[in-house]
């Protein structure tokens, strides 16, 4: 607690490693280690395309996790994201396949629905002072329920433009390629990182995560920021849903079951504190990559069941929460 003026003077070492960076660096180190280990163990693992495939297979998760990062940074949580992803795929598929709407109309509508849902949850959380956990849990049931109102079966998407976009591959140098989704996801992550670091909205997010009471007394727009954060998360979930439907070319109410937990796991592994106020978007990107790389390694292994993915994620979560605990204990 009481490091006094003199201590602080001593702390002024140039280039001092901020303890806030440690979790992100740990995740980066882990990612590098996994990649090297995979490359040593499996033939054909150490190629750029393997990394890009991780992006291709997890573009939707990345977008959803970006939204989740905003929410968690304020000290909140959004459990509705998986359900909103499913609802978005369902609405897209239903409108395009059953009603013949053009994608150019459907996609903005889906994004609007997600944002409005998020906005509504944000308003309830802020104005009625109900815990985000409860409100977004209700939002999750609502969105899943709405899926079944639209249809109980999986609907495949046949719109030619949409499938064309889904199958398009953008060639990169060295015979590598990525999907459109990856570009979108990377753009979203970049924009989010900019917003968090360089705009007032972003800084207010961190301030609220540090202390909502103080943020209010410092004259920050707490209501607006909190509502914005859930709206962003709703938007990202809907966009994640669009990418998901591009990935699977179908809509189904049981899509993305438990994706909220994957997103939270990615954010936490990326070093963001669940209590809010500390973390970086870069960490979340790394967190998603770690999750994706685990899956890749398991598929390369061939004999392991995919449940091992869950086991590894569980172990990692433990490790990272312990790491955060240690860091915050040392800081205190």
């Amino acid at each position, binding site marked *: 607690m009481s490091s*006094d003026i003199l201590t602080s003077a*001593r702390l002024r070492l140039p280039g001092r490693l901020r303890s806030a960076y440690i979790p992100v660096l740990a995740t980066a180190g882990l990612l590098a280690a996994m990649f090297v280990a995979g490359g040593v163990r499996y033939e054909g693992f150490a190629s750029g395309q393997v990394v890009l495939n991780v992006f291709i297979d997890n573009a939707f998760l990345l977008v959803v996790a970006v939204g989740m990062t905003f929410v968690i940074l304020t000290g909140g949580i959004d459990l509705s994201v998986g359900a909103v992803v499913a609802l978005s795929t369902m609405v897209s598929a239903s409108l395009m396949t059953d009603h013949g709407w053009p994608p150019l109309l459907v996609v903005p509508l889906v994004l609007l629905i997600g944002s409005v849902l998020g906005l509504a949850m944000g308003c309830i959380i802020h104005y009625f002072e109900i815990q985000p956990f409860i409100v977004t849990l209700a939002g999750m049931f609502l969105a899943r329920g709405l899926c079944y109102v639209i249809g109980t079966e999986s609907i495949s998407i046949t719109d030619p433009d949409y499938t064309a976009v889904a199958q398009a591959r953008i060639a990169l140098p060295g015979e590598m390629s990525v999907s459109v989704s990856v570009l979108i996801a990377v753009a979203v992550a970049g924009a989010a990182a900019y917003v968090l670091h360089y705009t007032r909205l972003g*800084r207010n997010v961190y301030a609220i995560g540090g*202390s909502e009471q103080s943020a209010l007394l*410092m004259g*920050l727009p707490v209501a607006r920021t909190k509502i914005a954060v859930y709206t962003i998360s709703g938007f990202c979930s809907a966009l994640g849903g669009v990418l998901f439907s591009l990935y699977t070319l179908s809509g189904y109410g049981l899509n993305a079951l438990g994706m909220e937990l994957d997103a939270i796991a990615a954010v936490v592994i990326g070093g963001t504190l669940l209590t809010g106020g500390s973390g970086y978007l870069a960490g979340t990107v790394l967190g998603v990559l770690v999750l994706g790389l685990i899956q890749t390694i398991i598929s390369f292994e061939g004999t392991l069941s995919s449940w091992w993915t869950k086991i590894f994620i569980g172990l990692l979560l433990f490790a990272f929460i312990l790491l955060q605990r240690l860091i915050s204990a040392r*800081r205190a």
Partner: protein
Amino acid sequence: MAPPAPILQMSGICKEFPGVKALSGVDFRLLPGEVHALMGENGAGKSTLIKVLTGVYAIDGGRITLEGEDVAFTGPLQSQQAGISTVYQEVNLCANLSVAENIFIGREPRRLGRIQWKRMRRRATELLAGLDLDIDVSAPLSSYSLAVQQMVAIARAVDISARVLILDEPTSSLDSGEVEQLFRVMRRLKAEGIAILFVSHFLDQIYEISDRMTILRNGSLVGEYLTSELGQVELVGKMIGRELADLEKLEDRPPARTSEPLVEAEALGRGGAIEPFTLTVHKGEVVGLAGLLGSGRTEIARLLFGADHASTGALRIDGEPVTLRTPRLAMNRGIAFCSENRRAEGLVPDLTVRENIVLALQAMRGWSRPIPRRTQDELVDKYVAALNIRPADPDQLVRNLSGGNQQKVLLARWLILEPRLLILDEPTRGIDVGAKAEIQRLVAELSDGGMAVLFVSAELEEVLRLSHKVAVLRDRRLVAELPNDDGLTTGVIMETIASGGRS
């Protein structure tokens, strides 16, 4: 010369909390270019008046006009935009953000919507340099002491070029040098025509800086006076509603009985925090620790309580060598530590006064042996009365108490342990003059009863009044140990600090 028209006028302000009438019919005005002190005991309603003014709470009755126009703010954001800049009691900043951000958040320098971090850090450095504070502004606020945090909060408020500046106990954690810096800035702002509302329990500061004062008692207005026309004794009388004779009575402390040593620190030290020191505390002795902020006062306290580990030296309790690895072990040995940082490591705001008071005692007994309710009530009632905690309702949530009353609750928690050594780190911060005298008398009584006390305070008068001997610190070194005899004055202590004990 006729006084200028008030910039801010509050009339007939009423505010009621469930069960407490915090303000009833209070009038208050603030003239441009004056420093106006708001005075009153703990719980008189000072902070509430400020929060009502700035829109943290809605008013139940009354009118507020700013520059002749009726206003009703819905929150600090609005009042800030209307030109009222406020430092609320207790540091209200975000410890996870950097110092620079804490100063500028909400009004960061931007270009095309993009925050200019470099410029922000440079301006923050300049601003703090103006307050004589040279620190790394990109480090998180949490890495600095309460005093620095308080200075940062002040820097933030001062830089918001406002017409009205409100400072609710900004000096509670500051030492005299920093207070001087603050006063210099206040005088400059005053000359620029800014109206300043200032709250403090340090009467010397009030008389030094304020032009006019408004006194509240129990949520009602006592009156508005020119500082130059109201003597200190009258002021205290008006604040507490009776004469205060207790302050002088303590002056004649009985000399400490030369008794066995209780705690002996020999060359005890911790790298980077405090150089090895040797200090003996006898039973029934009050030892004062004097020194500027950052001189290592708190560090000594933490070492003796096992909150930090010593890297050198030895500690003996009752002549028996011990290593205090955790506070728990220290508590088992009868050492209690009342920390200076009540918000971060003391009170549980959402528990009641009773629960907060018995917390440490219960923890000592272990949770399997609950304290009988009757004993709890007796203990709590005794200390609520002894410390004059108001409202005297053990079931009130601590969160709802005024700042000074919260401090009293924390103090009560450690007093009921009846420890053998009580370490008090700034125990009277934010406590009004009347209650301060009560607490000092209580400490004196306890020490007469055989309890040893290590008393850390930035207020030298207080240290002098209570202690049998004073240990003087400077630059993290214990430079002198002075017996508190007739020859010892605050002047002597200041000189010792200044000369580093080489005299």
